[in-house]
């Protein structure tokens, strides 16, 4: 117990108790007492240039490390600028704690300067949020916030603190235990359901394991590998599940859904049993829901009961943590002779027949850039923006370990990648961190070059520059009679000069043979580096399931 410390000091002390090593943030009037405490505190603060980037960086840090990310912003616009980042983390179940300053209690509700009802605004995009009314609440609320953010299905928690609360005095006593009668994050696994699941699996001749981000969150990659090998089933990992199962493994069939592989989609459609683990049957995965996996029974394993039967019918629901459930299932099924050899033969035939492919010419192909990154830096952490760049980054790099592919899946937030890469690099300074970007997405948070330079965070941004808002442009080409409404942005910015203006390294590649040397130069520079890859602008993302179609109605190049 420490007597008579300020609310601001109590906040910092509480964060230390939660082993917070870094905060991404931006100060402001309502945060002055807190930033004053931070000045001498033994916690690193990364000053961003826009609060949205603080939230994304905390998110990228969390995804790269598995720890809870922390961001700070001031009242009013500070908080509202966090909103996109919080929503991104919410959709992808990422644990972050956002602390916002608020106007003093006496001014709450009177439309004071820089007042915004941030708890009201973030209600539908946080797992939980708090408006602190008394300084004494700070330790308990911080303890609860980290617990709620990181347990069960993780998610963002926001704490809003009025300025006068941060200057009030309290006796500081950090609680040892959580007492939340209304929150029980993990239920015991129902053994009857497990047995039912096991018997369906044993009987199945055409199973498919559909693995999502839940595997990564639950640290269950090893358990998934053992389970998949035991039952000899093909594994399709979602965008959020990239790295949960090695892309290099013979049982891997790549990603399902809209820009998934043909063979993953064909396998799902012909399967007699879908085993979904930590995945949520998102519309980008299922395509036309009525036609999804028409002959399959579905086992749905998820920690969040609300995900079960939300989008699809389920034959056997199993509520629980992926790691626990997979361990128990594997034990139940032990000494099983899978009946899947014919099925695997069929899937492998599709794999050979319909591989991911593109045509080379004398221009730089975006796929080639991604392949080159994989060849040179197979252990890199790849972060992406959103759109074509994201899909190419998913398709042409082979992910083999959890937390090496970081991307905004659910919300699809352009501008996510660069600040998330900064967060990832701060959390994993040992790793090579490369943001695979588009020229459109990158411009949504390019101001963060200043953050990377000032805080010496050497991330590499590989811009696949086609001068288009590429994914929308692709849809216009295919479905809107080539009417390119507001998607052409070519020659509007010189990214090399932009990098140099911020004292970062700017490089450009225009020929395929420049790609690898320039990538090496960027990584070896040890400095924040922006590479402008001028790519073949006619290149599109294939294969592709048109909106509203079944996932086997997939179109390909030619």
């Amino acid at each position: 117990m420490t007597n008579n410390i300020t609310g601001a000091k109590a906040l910092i002390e509480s964060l230390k108790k939660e082993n917070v090593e870094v905060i991404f943030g931006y100060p402001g009037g309502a945060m002055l007492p807190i930033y004053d405490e931070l000045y001498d505190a033994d916690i690193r603060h990364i000053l961003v240039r826009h609060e949205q980037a603080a939230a994304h960086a905390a998110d990228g840090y969390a995804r790269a490390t598995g720890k809870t990310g922390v961001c700070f912003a001031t009242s009013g616009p500070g908080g509202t600028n966090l909103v996109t980042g919080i929503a991104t983390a919410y959709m992808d179940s990422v644990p972050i704690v956002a602390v916002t300053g608020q106007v003093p209690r006496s001014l709450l509700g009177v439309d004071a300067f820089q007042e915004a009802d941030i708890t009201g605004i973030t209600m539908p995009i946080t797992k939980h949020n708090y408006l602190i009314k008394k300084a004494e609440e700070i330790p308990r609320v911080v303890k609860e916030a980290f617990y709620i953010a990181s347990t069960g299905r993780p998610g963002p928690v926001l704490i809003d603190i009025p300025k006068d609360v941060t200057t009030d005095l309290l006796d500081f006593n950090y609680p040892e235990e959580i007492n939340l009668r209304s929150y029980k994050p993990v239920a015991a696994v129902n053994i009857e359901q497990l047995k039912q699941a096991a018997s369906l699996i044993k009987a199945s001749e055409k199973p498919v394991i559909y693995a999502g981000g839940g595997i990564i969150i639950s640290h269950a990659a090893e358990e998934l590998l053992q389970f998949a090998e035991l039952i000899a089933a093909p594994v399709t990992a979602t965008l959020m599940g990239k790295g949960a199962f090695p892309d290099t493994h013979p049982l891997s069939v790549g990603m399902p859904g809209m820009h998934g592989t043909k063979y993953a989609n064909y396998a799902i459609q012909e399967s007699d049993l879908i085993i979904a683990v930590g995945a949520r049957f998102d519309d980008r995965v299922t395509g036309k829901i009525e036609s999804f996996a028409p002959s399959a029974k579905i086992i749905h394993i998820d920690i969040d009961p609300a995900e079960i039967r939300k989008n699809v019918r389920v034959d056997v629901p199993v509520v629980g943590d992926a790691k626990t459930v997979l361990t128990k299932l594997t034990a139940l099924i032990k000494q099983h002779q899978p009946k899947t050899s014919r099925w695997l033969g069929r899937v492998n035939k599709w794999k050979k027949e319909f591989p991911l492919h593109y045509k080379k010419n004398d221009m730089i192909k975006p796929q080639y850039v991604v392949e080159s990154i994989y060849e040179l830096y197979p252990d890199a952490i790849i972060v992406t923006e959103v759109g074509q760049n994201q899909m190419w980054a998913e398709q042409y790099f082979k992910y083999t370990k959890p937390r090496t592919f970081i991307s905004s899946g659910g919300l699809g937030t352009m501008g996510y990648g660069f600040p998330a890469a900064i967060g990832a690099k701060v959390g994993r300074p040992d790793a090579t961190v490369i943001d695979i970007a588009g020229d459109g997405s990158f411009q949504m948070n390019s101001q963060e070059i200043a953050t990377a330079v000032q805080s010496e965070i050497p991330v590499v941004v590989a811009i696949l520059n086609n001068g288009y808002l590429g994914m929308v442009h692709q849809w216009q080409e295919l479905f809107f009679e080539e009417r390119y409404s507001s998607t052409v942005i070519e020659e509007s910015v010189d990214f090399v000069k932009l990098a140099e203006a911020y004292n970062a390294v700017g490089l450009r590649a225009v020929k395929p043979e420049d790609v690898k040397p320039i990538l090496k130069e960027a990584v070896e520079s040890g400095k924040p580096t922006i590479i402008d890859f001028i790519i073949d602008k006619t290149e599109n993302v294939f294969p592709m399931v048109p909106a509203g179609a079944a996932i086997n109605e997939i179109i390909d190049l030619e």
Partner: protein
Amino acid sequence: MRHTIAALVENRPGVLTKVSGLFSRRRFNIESLAVGVTERPDVSRITIVVAGDDTVLEQVLKQLNKLIDIIHVTKLSPKNSVSRELALIKVGVDSATRSEVMQIVDVFRAKIIDVAADSLIVEVTGDRSKITAMEHLLSQFGIKELVRTGDIALHRSSTTAEDIANQGEVN
């Protein structure tokens, strides 16, 4: 299909907003919602009537359960629960119709709680169909204003909010 859901929630500011926000965001249809404190001052009870099929009901229950401030959610079946609604109905009357209205009120075991020269306010308690019947009968005299509380309901067993709240703490 109409379902009655009882939720015990932390009696804190903003909880009702979280519940109603969840309903609008997930496009669940609320027919009525009533909220009040229970025998424990730190716990409120929300009774919600929702329209939808069983899939919708399942989602409503699960999504409500995810809200951190919700202690316990349950669906009340008509068999194992009792529910009541209260309505206040201001009916236009004159010397000719006043006694007729009073007779209807008697038959329904309702009460007249305010008398004016040209109107009466009737208080009626009962299940939804009783109130609807009453409203229908009084409409011929001219209803000037009407307010209904929405259903409140309790499970028939002897479980109290205290029990459930304590159970929550143990688990």
